[in-house]
């Protein structure tokens, strides 16, 4: 009832062209430099021409470094209640050890933002859903807190909020009785930014172990790296097509 279209098709087309011009800078005829992800116009819905994903290089990830976890907690206002078994955890560090050789690895695990998300399949209310750009979210307005999605997720990516919360951050509404998980910092991504964990890994920790980008864009950094290096996805055998890729494991 409230949707009003104040923009004529011509104006939309012009703005679209202008955005396309801004996104690519022609250096010489036939050579175009594409910048990093551009912010989409505020009034435009997300589209499936973009597929957000992440590449985590476990060789660069250091044992004991938790900057990505800290950044996530700060960005999204996640606070522990002294109950590690149930406290919200959107990203966690996992340590692997090969029992035969003793070789160790440390890597972050978060919501894999699957193309075929089982959490969406089992949700009885439609609260768990996948956006057109591949980001898997919980619509807490319709979540009834049944936690089927938590059982369906093979990555243990989701948390349930048990406590009454206060002082939530404006960009991340969270509340008691709903399930939540990594949103891929959707508020930042929609504004043309990168998730807080990736930013922290690159800028604060200086490790560059996490790369975020558009898997559909062959010119993006993540696509180039995926084309160059052998990467794996956790439990790829399940056929869920996770958007998070790992190298070095």
């Amino acid at each position: 009832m409230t949707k009003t279209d104040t923009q004529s098709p011509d104006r939309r087309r012009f703005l679209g062209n202008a955005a396309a011009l801004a996104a690519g800078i022609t250096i010489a005829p036939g050579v175009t430099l594409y910048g990093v992800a551009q912010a989409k116009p505020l009034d435009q819905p997300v589209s499936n021409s973009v597929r957000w994903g992440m590449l985590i290089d476990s060789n660069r990830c250091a044992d004991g470094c938790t900057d990505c976890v800290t950044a996530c907690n700060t960005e999204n206002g996640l606070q522990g209640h002294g109950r590690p078994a149930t406290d919200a955890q959107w990203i966690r560090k996992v340590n692997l050890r090969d029992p035969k050789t003793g070789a160790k690895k440390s890597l972050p695990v978060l919501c894999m933002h699957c193309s075929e998300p089982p959490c969406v399949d089992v949700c009885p209310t439609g609260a768990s859903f996948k956006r057109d750009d591949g980001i898997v979210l919980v619509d807490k307005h319709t979540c009834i807190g049944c936690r089927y999605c938590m059982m369906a997720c093979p990555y243990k990516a989701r948390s349930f909020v048990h406590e009454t919360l206060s002082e939530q951050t404006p960009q991340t509404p969270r509340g008691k009785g709903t399930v939540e998980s990594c949103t891929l910092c959707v508020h930042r991504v929609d504004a043309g930014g990168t998730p807080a964990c990736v930013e922290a890994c690159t800028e604060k920790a200086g490790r560059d172990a996490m790369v975020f980008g558009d898997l559909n864009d062959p010119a993006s950094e993540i696509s180039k790296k995926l084309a160059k290096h052998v990467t794996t996805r956790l439990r790829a055998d399940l056929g869920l097509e996770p958007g998070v890729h790992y190298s070095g494991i």
Partner: protein
Amino acid sequence: MVEAAENSRVFVPSPPKGKGDKCVRDTDFMRANHMNLLKHQRDETMRKGIRTKQYSLKECVACHAVPGNDGQPVSYEDPKNFCRSCHDYVAVKLDCFECHASKPAKGQAHALPNADNAYRVSGGLPQ
């Protein structure tokens, strides 16, 4: 709609003015339909990633920030809160602020705490 008569024996809420000259729609429309605007915007933002600011809850909260005793915007916990000043009166419970922030983020532009914007309900609501 509701007009606060100076000498009326009937108490009516008079919520503090927001920032700027007028709201995104006229006052009568907003009184009757603000929840529909918010609910529509909620689905557009959540499901489609449309983040226009006109009907965004975050913008409502920023524009209708009410200063507390310390001059900082009050949260929904405080009876001076803009939303509460009417919702308490009509006894309609709202769930928005169980999850959403009810005051602007630090650094976000919000209504300035000045005399024009002070809480105007004489005597205040029963607390």
